[in-house]
Structures are given as structure tokens and as C-alpha cells.
């Protein structure tokens, strides 16, 4: 029997505000435990939450960029449950009137582009952090994260494979980082997701019973957890049993999902409107200001790179794939006229170095200015492309200035044609056998002569000049 997979994602993106959603507590990551806790975050009696306007603006940026409807009047609800890292006993979220509804995002899949619809994106507060393994018989609670604003982005169940789920997550991550509303740092938990997975017989209209996989925070684990879960559900159904609607935890060490059902007994969040918070209204003027301040988005960048700069589609795709790559390209392009060469180097040698070290470009020693200067030194014939590679490697190690490296290592290209002619004549003169063979028709030997001249000049000769001079000498 063949099965179809139906997947929906709930992505939690931590909004990059300075302060929390309802208090003036700091959202800084990595602070000493319990130092960023306001009385509101503690849920002490008598305190009242006041909503952070910037969190709304950031959520609206996401809504506008996904072509969604913006609810200019949105309200907050309480989601009730007990857990030690949730001091109030409820989480403030937007159940009935979320700030953003009905958007969509374009995702690149193996079968081409696909539109995934976004049901809603709502604001809610994060919980604190429980530390289970540090203290004998007790759990430690750090409330620094409690109250941090999250945008929960809920997709329609329109994703049909683990790979597609990863592609969707990547597209959302790319968008939120371009919009500057979330730093996208998955290792620090700035983006995490819950995955709803179900299977149905091919062609069936009705959805199967779904399982929810909680709190996955890496691309690799999303793919693995979904694939494991699909296999598990097929096994369950083919054994004549049925899938239970439940929350499951993905264990990355064992690569399996486990039921969390014992904990979730009689789960009922009893949502109701939060009486502490009035509806938040966004004016037409505010909405327009946010609209006008939206940056150029990845897709627009890609189109512009192709149509205005004349980059290859593949190059434009790679460069617009992340904000840091696009910044490197655009920054370097300000230092040189040959933007196509900037692109070629960025996609080629620079990307190769990034892959080798497995880092993002903003983690490297290469600055946009220095990179632009490197390309400029190739185009103004100060150095050859070959030398430029070694300069790039030097920058990669030390971050030194291009001109300093060229000068201190004596890498300036030999422009003096008579000097090159002298060297070329010497090479030709000391290799009579090769000359004879070349003249006898072994044209491939031309490369040998070029190589010898380059070796003699330690790569500092301009390859174009060398070619011309050798052609003249060898006839």
C-alpha cells in the first residue's frame, strides 16, 4: 500500500526586541540566571502586563512580507497549564484574534517551487527554562527567558515530506532574518518548531490522526524526526492498530520519537480572553510606516541581481539565500565596478572556504570592504587571479588588509613586458625538445611553457601577457 504524508509546522521565532513582551525585563541571551526577571515575569500578585509595541511592529513586518491580512485590532488570551517554568500558571497568547492571518511563502523543493500557506502568526510569551539534571531530586528554574516575545507561525497542513518541511523552515528563517525581526540563531533556540505529522492512504481525502513532535531546533533533526515518525505510523497502521493523537518527544540520540502522553493527561488549556490586557490597535499610519520601511526581500534581490546586474540565476540564488551573503555581495560591490566578478568569487572560492570550515560568512575574517578591494586588485591588474586566491586564503587566516598582504609578500603582478619577454625567451631557450615537439604539432605543450613562466615569476606574471608573449616567440 502506498501512503501520503501530511505535515504542518508551528515555528516559534523569538522576536529580536530588547525588552520582553509585557515587561521591561531584558531579552539578552546568555545572561546570568534569573538576572533578567521583572516582577511581571515572575507573575507576582498585583502586577499588570503592558504590551511592547515593537513586538507588534515586528510581527506585522512578517505579515506584510507574506502577503497576509493584518488584524489592526488584536487581542490576548490565556492558555492555562501548570509547569514550574511558567510562573503565572498560564501563558499569554493570541488565540481568537491573532495579529497576522492568511499569509503564504514560496518554498524551493526538489520538484520546483511550491507555495505553503500560513494559517496565522500570533504573538505569545515564552516560558522560563527548567534545569533537570543539576540538582538531586529537584528541578532548577531560570526565568530569564520568561516573557520573551515569540511569533508563532502556523502553516497549513500542506507539506508533504520531511525534506519539504526543512525547505519551508529554511524559507521562513531566511525571511525573518532578512526582515530583521529574529536573529534566526537555532543553536540559541531563537527558532524552534513543533511538527504535526499524519499519514493517509494515497488519494484519500480525509486526513489521518496526527501526532505532534515537540520542540525541535535543527534542520537535521526536523528531517530525521519526521522520517522516523512516518515510518512508525505506517508500521502502526499496517499492524492493524490506529495512530493515537498525542504529543511525542524526539530523542536525537536514539533517533526515535517517544510518547509524552502520561504528562499530558486530560490536556485542556481552557483558553479565555486575558482580562489584564485590552485589545491592541494598530493605526493606519503605523501600518503605512511599517510597510514603507520593509527591506528588499530575498526574492526581490534575486530578481534584481539577475535583471539589473546580469548574474547567473544560480549565482543570484546563492547570494540572496541569506542576509549575510547578500550584505557581503552588496558591500563588496561598492568597492569595485566588476560586480559580476564579485559574484563569481563569492559563489566560487569564498563559498568553498565557507564549506570547508562549515561557517557562515559573518563568522569569517572576510569583510565586505576587504573582499571588494581584493576583486578591485584583480581588475586593475595589480595581482593575478591565482595570486588573489592565496591573498584570500591569507585574509581567511588573519583578516589582514588586502593591500598590506600584497605589499608585505611582494605579490604585485609583473607588468613589465620586457622582463616577461626575457623570462619567456629563457624558458624557450632552455627547453629545445619541448619547442621542437610543440612546433611538430603537440599544441598542448603551450600550457607547459605558460606554467614554466609562471613558476619562474612565482605566479606574479599576468597570464594574459604571458600567453601573448609566448605565442609571439613560439610562432
Amino acid at each position, binding site marked *: 500500500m502506498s501512503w501520503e504524508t501530511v505535515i504542518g509546522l508551528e515555528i516559534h521565532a523569538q522576536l529580536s526586541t530588547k525588552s520582553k513582551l509585557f515587561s521591561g525585563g531584558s531579552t539578552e541571551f546568555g545572561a546570568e540566571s534569573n538576572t533578567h526577571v521583572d516582577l511581571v515575569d515572575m507573575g507576582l500578585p498585583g502586577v499588570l502586563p503592558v504590551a511592547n509595541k515593537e513586538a507588534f511592529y515586528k510581527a506585522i513586518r512578517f505579515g506584510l512580507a507574506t502577503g497576509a491580512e493584518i488584524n489592526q485590532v488584536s487581542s490576548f488570551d490565556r492558555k492555562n497549564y501548570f509547569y514550574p517554568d511558567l510562573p503565572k500558571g498560564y501563558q499569554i497568547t493570541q488565540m481568537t484574534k491573532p495579529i497576522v492571518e492568511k499569509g503564504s511563502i514560496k518554498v524551493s523543493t526538489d520538484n520546483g517551487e511550491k507555495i505553503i500557506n500560513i494559517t496565522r502568526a500570533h504573538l505569545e510569551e515564552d516560558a522560563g527554562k527548567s534545569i533537570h539534571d543539576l540538582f538531586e531530586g529537584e528541578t532548577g528554574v531560570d526565568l530569564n527567558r520568561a516573557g520573551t516575545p515569540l511569533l508563532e507561525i502556523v502553516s497549513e497542513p500542506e507539506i508533504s515530506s520531511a525534506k519539504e518541511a526543512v525547505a519551508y523552515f529554511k524559507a521562513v528563517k531566511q525571511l525573518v532574518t532578512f526582515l530583521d525581526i529574529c536573529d534566526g540563531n537555532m543553536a540559541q533556540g531563537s527558532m524552534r518548531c513543533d511538527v504535526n505529522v499524519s499519514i493517509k492512504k494515497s488519494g484519500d481525502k480525509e486526513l489521518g490522526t496526527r501526532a505532534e513532535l515537540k520542540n525541535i531546533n535543527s534542520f537535521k533533526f526536523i528531517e530525521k524526526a519526521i522520517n522516523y515518525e512516518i515510518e512508525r505510523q505506517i508500521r502502526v497502521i499496517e499492524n492493524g492498530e490506529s495512530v493515537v493523537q498525542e504529543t511525542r518527544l524526539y530523542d536525537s540520540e536514539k533517533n526515535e520519537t517517544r510518547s509524552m502522553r502520561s504528562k499530558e493527561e486530560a490536556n485542556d488549556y481552557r483558553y479565555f480572553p486575558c482580562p489584564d490586557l*485590552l485589545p491592541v490597535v494598530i493605526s493606519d499610519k503605523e501600518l503605512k510606516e511599517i510597510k514603507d520601511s520593509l527591506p528588499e526581500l530575498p526574492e526581490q534581490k534575486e530578481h534584481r541581481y539577475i535583471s539589473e546586474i546580469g548574474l547567473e540565476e544560480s549565482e543570484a540564488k546563492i547570494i540572496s539565500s541569506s542576509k549575510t551573503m547578500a550584505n557581503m555581495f552588496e558591500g563588496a560591490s561598492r568597492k569595485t565596478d566588476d560586480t559580476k566578478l564579485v559574484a563569481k568569487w563569492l559563489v566560487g572560492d569564498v563559498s568553498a572556504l565557507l564549506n570547508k570550515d562549515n561557517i557562515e560568512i559573518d563568522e569569517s575574517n572576510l569583510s565586505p570592504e576587504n573582499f571588494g578591494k581584493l576583486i578591485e586588485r584583480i581588475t586593475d591588474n595589480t595581482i593575478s587571479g591565482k595570486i588573489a586566491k592565496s591573498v584570500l586564503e591569507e585574509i581567511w587566516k588573519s583578516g589582514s588588509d588586502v593591500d598590506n598582504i600584497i605589499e608585505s609578500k611582494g605579490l604585485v603582478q609583473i607588468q613589465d613586458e620586457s622582463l616577461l619577454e626575457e623570462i619567456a625567451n629563457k624558458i624557450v631557450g632552455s627547453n629545445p625538445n619541448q619547442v621542437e615537439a610543440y612546433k611538430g604539432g603537440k599544441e598542448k605543450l603551450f600550457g607547459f611553457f605558460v606554467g614554466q613562466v609562471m613558476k619562474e615569476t612565482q605566479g606574479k606574471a599576468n597570464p594574459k601577457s604571458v600567453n601573448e608573449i609566448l605565442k609571439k616567440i613560439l610562432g
Partner: protein
Amino acid sequence: MDKKTVTTISYLSRLKLDGEKEEKITNDLKNIIQFVNQLEEVNTSDIEPLTNPLEKTAKTRDDKVTANNLKEELLEIAPSSNEDYFLVPRVVE
């Protein structure tokens, strides 16, 4: 409203009710709901739900950090804590 619902609600609210109390509360809740149910007689199909009786909209804040580090004071008022964390009976993951 029956005894089973009351048992579930008391579990969700982490309130422990003994047999006698449970019966009394079941009856009380029945009466309350019956009373409130009179509202069902009013046709509300064209009326927006009222999320807050004040019928006003919220004042919001600018994104500024205003909180001080209250770590010591807050840990001190907790029933149990050490120098870094609030401590609770172990929650098993």
C-alpha cells in the same frame, strides 16, 4: 456538569477535593451554570464578543529595558531556591 467533569477540572486546577466537597461543588456549579445559561436566550449572532468590559484599547510601551536585576530579592521570597535558581520538586522529562 457531573462528577467526572468536576474531577477533571479539579485535577487541571491542582485543587484537591474530598468526596463530600466534590458533591457540594458539583451541585453549586450545576446551579451556577443553570443561572448563567439564561443568557443563551438572547440572540447574539450580530454582536462582537466582548473581550473586556472596559471597551477601551490598550496603552502600549516602547521597547526599552527598565527592569533592574532583582535576582537576590526574588530568590529570597521563593519557598525554595539556591544561589542561582528557584527550586521545585523534580519534574521528570
